[in-house]
């Protein structure tokens, strides 16, 4: 699964991980092959053996025996490095389910790793938030304030479907509504107030 940050990839990962009792590791920029393997074994609660190939075997054995999937988040950090080959090794040795989550450019970077790329079963792009998603989020998070569709649509357009920024804006709308005693907010009520897009405000004056 790939997509820009803030689209809810990690939340989706959390849900999937809980449903299937998956192992989950989040990659870091500085990781070597060894750091990567040790992190996975730590997540599994297994004492690492000495050599890299033994560690790969340990991971693979546990994956195939337990039939639990392995979710690797922020995979873009290791995909350009030797650690990517470790993923191929683990997959080959276990035939287990690996779920790779990364940023938008991951499919392109992975195309260079032919061995790994052609083993991908399915590419899933993270979806932009739809008006339905935003409406759902608003009514679940803030049931006490009724936010009108036109306002929600405006918010969603401004942040280009980034759910994390939608959440920030809903929070602001809610606080503003409480402060002013509104029970219902639409685009007119909101008026000239800004919508947070992550851009620093333009200099005025």
């Amino acid at each position, binding site marked *: 699964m790939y997509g820009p940050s803030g689209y809810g990839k990690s939340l989706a990962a959390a849900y999937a991980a809980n449903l299937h009792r998956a*192992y989950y590791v989040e990659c870091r920029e500085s990781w070597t092959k060894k750091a990567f393997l040790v992190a996975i074994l730590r*997540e599994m609660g*297994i004492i690492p053996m000495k050599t890299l190939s033994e560690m790969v075997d*340990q991971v693979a054995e546990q994956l195939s*025996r337990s039939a639990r999937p392995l979710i690797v988040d922020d995979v873009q950090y290791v995909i350009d490095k030797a650690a990517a080959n470790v993923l191929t090794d683990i997959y080959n*040795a276990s035939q287990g389910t690996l779920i790779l989550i990364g940023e938008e450019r991951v499919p392109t970077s992975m195309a260079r790793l032919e061995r790994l790329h052609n083993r991908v079963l399915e590419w899933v792009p993270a979806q932009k938030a739809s008006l339905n998603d935003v409406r759902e989020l608003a009514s679940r998070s803030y049931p006490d304030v009724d936010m009108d569709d036109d306002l929600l649509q405006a918010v969603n357009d401004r942040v280009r479907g980034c759910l994390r920024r939608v959440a920030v804006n809903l929070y602001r709308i809610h606080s503003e509504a409480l402060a002013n005693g509104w029970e219902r907010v639409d685009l007119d009520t909101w008026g000239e107030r800004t919508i947070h897009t992550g851009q620093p405000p333009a200099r005025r004056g």
Partner: protein
Amino acid sequence: MAKTTTRKPVHLEAQGPKGDRQSMWEIMRKLHKGGEPITVRDVWMLGAEWAPKGRVRDYMAGLVAAGYLRPIEGAPGPSVQYELVKDCGLDAPRVRKDGTEVTQGRGREQMWRTIKIIGEFTSQDLARAASTPDFPVAEKTANEYCVMLAGAGYLQTVRAGRPGRFARYRLITSRWTGPRAPMIQRLKQVFDPNTGEVVYTRHGRDGGGDA
């Protein structure tokens, strides 16, 4: 590149102290790997001598009922010999004597896993993200878990709560001790099964109730 040649068997050993199920299970896997039959007596002597033998017998009965173990037919000797027919890896299956799965603690397991994944969160966020259709997590449970984990120093309080506003927490990465979720014990203390230590006891709220 001969990929299919027999690999040297790897050894999977759990970190930290083991509960009795875990140590019995590891002995069974070890016997199985060594090509030896599994008997109640061996498992008890090698892996659970501190426990009453009945506990070993019950656990193994549960494993048979759940299809992990099978008695070897026609084996010589006075005691029943078993073989491991379903090896699910390192983690000991949590089964009762009748073979049904023990699901107590699944909510807690889900919260612990989710905390690592979602970054900054309120207890409300945590309850939502950690819930699955089969094992929903109540906001109240999530809140108590957060408070206790923060007290034990696993979570950092990013923004303190106040009436009408939830506190926000974040996992202190270096304090992630392992995959097994810390438990809240009845004495209002936090026990970490990864290290086998009681890491936090809540004081100062004698008499129960909300302060």
